[in-house]
């Protein structure tokens, strides 16, 4: 018997999938672990330290802001952790810690929380944080440490300034194998292509992301660079593996809040990112275009989504009859 106990009454459906925002974010974090390990091996413990600092400050800023603005605590959904890791991955390992904290503050408070928190930000917080730092500290943001030069070196001051392959003279280029393994100068999380691909495959396997945006993004860059390089596949391979292209295409461009949800929209979004990246790399004065391309497409994302939203089931026919009636 019911024993006077009250029954729960709710709207259907009474079954729910077991997914949650937290589980999705946890999957993204797991997918980023191989790249984190690789960056620690390549750039030393300082890379790990920078990432940890970034994660902790992001979570702290989010917690404090939500408390001060008297809103529910959202750090449990782990999205601030993801932002922290991604922003750190976009920084050179030599960056001073206070700059990291400033970048985290910009990403979490200004870009994410000022616009309403998770799901409401109009651009990717990590990318916006990186661009903010690029504009503010352009010197420090492009002084790379030599790969594999001191595992235990936690201090950033004696870093050797090296250039990324995108701006380097062609005779000093690292080999393609080194590029694949990530033994080159660059931001701490972007260099090891293999680790990033492993993470990407994990996300695909867990159905956290669909391959549409990464593929259309990377393929567009490949095609344009193939035309530019007049069929030189080595040139294309360097272009694909350098800069933050793979990191951006797999982990940043696929951000839910700032990319379209429609299939067609995702293709347009990916192609747009690819084209802007190529334009900046080939004709711009900046060495790297992935961040700017994604942030520009983020802004266009709502418009793309609206233009590509499918018609509700069965409406196509009606339109046709209308056209027929007009004719």
């Amino acid at each position, binding site marked *: 018997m019911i024993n006077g106990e009250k*029954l*729960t*009454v709710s*709207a*259907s459906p*009474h079954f729910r*999938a077991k997914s*949650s925002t937290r589980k999705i974010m946890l999957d993204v974090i797991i997918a980023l672990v191989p790249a984190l390990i690789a960056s620690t091996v390549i750039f030393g413990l300082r890379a790990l330290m920078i990432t940890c600092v970034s994660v902790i400050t992001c979570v702290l800023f989010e917690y404090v802001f939500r408390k001060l603005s008297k809103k529910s605590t959202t750090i449990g959904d782990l999205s601030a952790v993801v932002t922290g890791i991604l922003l750190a991955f976009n920084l050179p390992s030599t960056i001073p810690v206070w700059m990291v904290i400033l970048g985290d503050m910009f990403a979490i408070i200004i870009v994410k929380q000022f616009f309403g928190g998770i*799901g409401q930000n109009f651009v990717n917080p990590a990318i916006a944080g990186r661009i903010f730092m690029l504009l503010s500290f352009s010197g420090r943001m492009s002084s790379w440490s030599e790969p594999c030069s001191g595992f235990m070196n936690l201090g950033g001051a004696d870093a050797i300034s090296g250039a990324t392959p995108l701006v380097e003279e062609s005779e000093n280029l690292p080999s393609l194998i080194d590029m694949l393994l990530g033994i080159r100068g660059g931001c701490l999380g972007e260099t090891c292509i293999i680790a990033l691909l492993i993470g990407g495959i994990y996300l695909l396997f867990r159905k956290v992301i669909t391959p549409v945006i990464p593929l259309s993004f990377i393929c567009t860059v490949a095609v344009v660079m193939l035309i530019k390089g007049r069929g030189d596949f080595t040139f294309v391979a360097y272009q694909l593996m350098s800069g933050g292209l793979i990191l951006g295409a797999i982990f940043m461009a696929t951000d839910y809040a700032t990319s379209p949800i*429609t299939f067609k929209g995702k293709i347009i979004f990916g192609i747009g990112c690819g084209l802007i990246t190529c334009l900046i790399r080939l004709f711009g004065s900046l060495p790297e275009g992935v961040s700017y391309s994604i942030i520009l497409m983020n802004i266009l994302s709502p418009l793309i989504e609206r233009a590509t939203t499918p018609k509700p089931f069965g409406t196509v026919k009606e339109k046709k009859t209308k056209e027929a009636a007009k004719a």
Partner: protein
Amino acid sequence: MSGIPKGVLTAVKKVRGGVRVDHCKNTMDSEVVRIPTPQTVVIPMQMSIGAPCEPLVKPGDEVSVGQLIGDTEKFVSAPIHASVSGIVKAVGDVKMPTGVLAKAVTIESDGEMRLFEGVEPPKADTREDFIKAVRNSGLVGLGGAGFPTHVKLSFSPDKNIDTLIINAAECEPYITVDYRECIENSWDILSAVYTIKEILGFKKVIIAAEDNKPEAFNVLKRIADKDIDVGNEVRLMVLKSKYPQGAEKMMVQSATGRKVPPGKLPADVGCVVMNVASVAFISRYLKTGKPLVSRSLTVDGSAIAEPKNVRVPIGTMISEVINFCGGYKEQPYKLITGGPMMGLSVVGDDFPILKQNNAILAFGKEDAILKNETDCIHCGRCAAACPLSLTPTNIVRAAKIRDVAALERIGVNVCMECGSCAYSCPAGMPLVQYMRLGKSILREEAAKK
């Protein structure tokens, strides 16, 4: 013979989106058993979409099984019959599971289940007689929606309706009564299929079932196979088991590739979809003339001691049905009439079984916990799951700010509330509730004009 290939068919067009839910078909092997005659039944006068019936009996009247006790002049409605024999105790308002009051006839049973003497096989040789007979049987769609069947069947002969689809998909978790119907009453189904086909002039009949019920499928196939040789167009179609495969619009799309436009019915694209249990009932009714006074339903869920399929007189109290199934084995925290995806959660077990109830599910504490609603992360899972190509996340936004133009443009009224979006939402948003909010906003706006 044109078009339709021989043998078992597969879907002409795949259904978009949908979700893979656990089947939980625990009662698949449970033969439908009749429960002992209840002492009292409460028969509401509103058990279908459309107009309520007026009670034709008064307290103190003696009634017997199959006797007409409620009817109306209105077209979209189905008459109501006494489900037990005995004395009418009361005629008055009772609370329905939805919370509204409805007139109901309470009958105290004499335990004899005497059949009404007026019950005799109906005349159903012509189209008009047949539809009249279906109306008199009190049949409504037994799959859950409760749409009066005679309304569905009374289309004009020159409307070019060519396909009858028999829906045996039963895509809702837990429910197995249609499956049992296929196994236990397959001849009823087949004989009704041929009668309906002949009288109403359908060119082809497609019996559609999901691939997770191979036994039902084999039974139906064996019977249909005999007729494949004579060039007669009755075919079986196997569908991938995916929710909401059995929704009417999805059925029409799978079986014929046609899409039912928003606000239209399957008849507008030349199809009629009937639930397999409704069809089997028509066959029995034509043979005996006994109207719809009982129905089969699945009793299941984590709080039910002995889940099983039962046949109960219409108007039996839910509590009585659950007692027959061993009662509750743990404290129930959620009680649902219908399936877990589209069923209605009710506030107690003192409601009568209606014609359209195909299941009673009771769940313990763990299964009744509601997901915490957090902010939308714009992941797009809802839009990917929507079989009707809607974008629920945008509908939520429009509904929250009462954006009437956006609600119309996005097409909230197309939504059939199948719950695929809410099922897949990682933020735990009650999306179906938002869809209903959006629809009610549009209704209010339409009323203002």
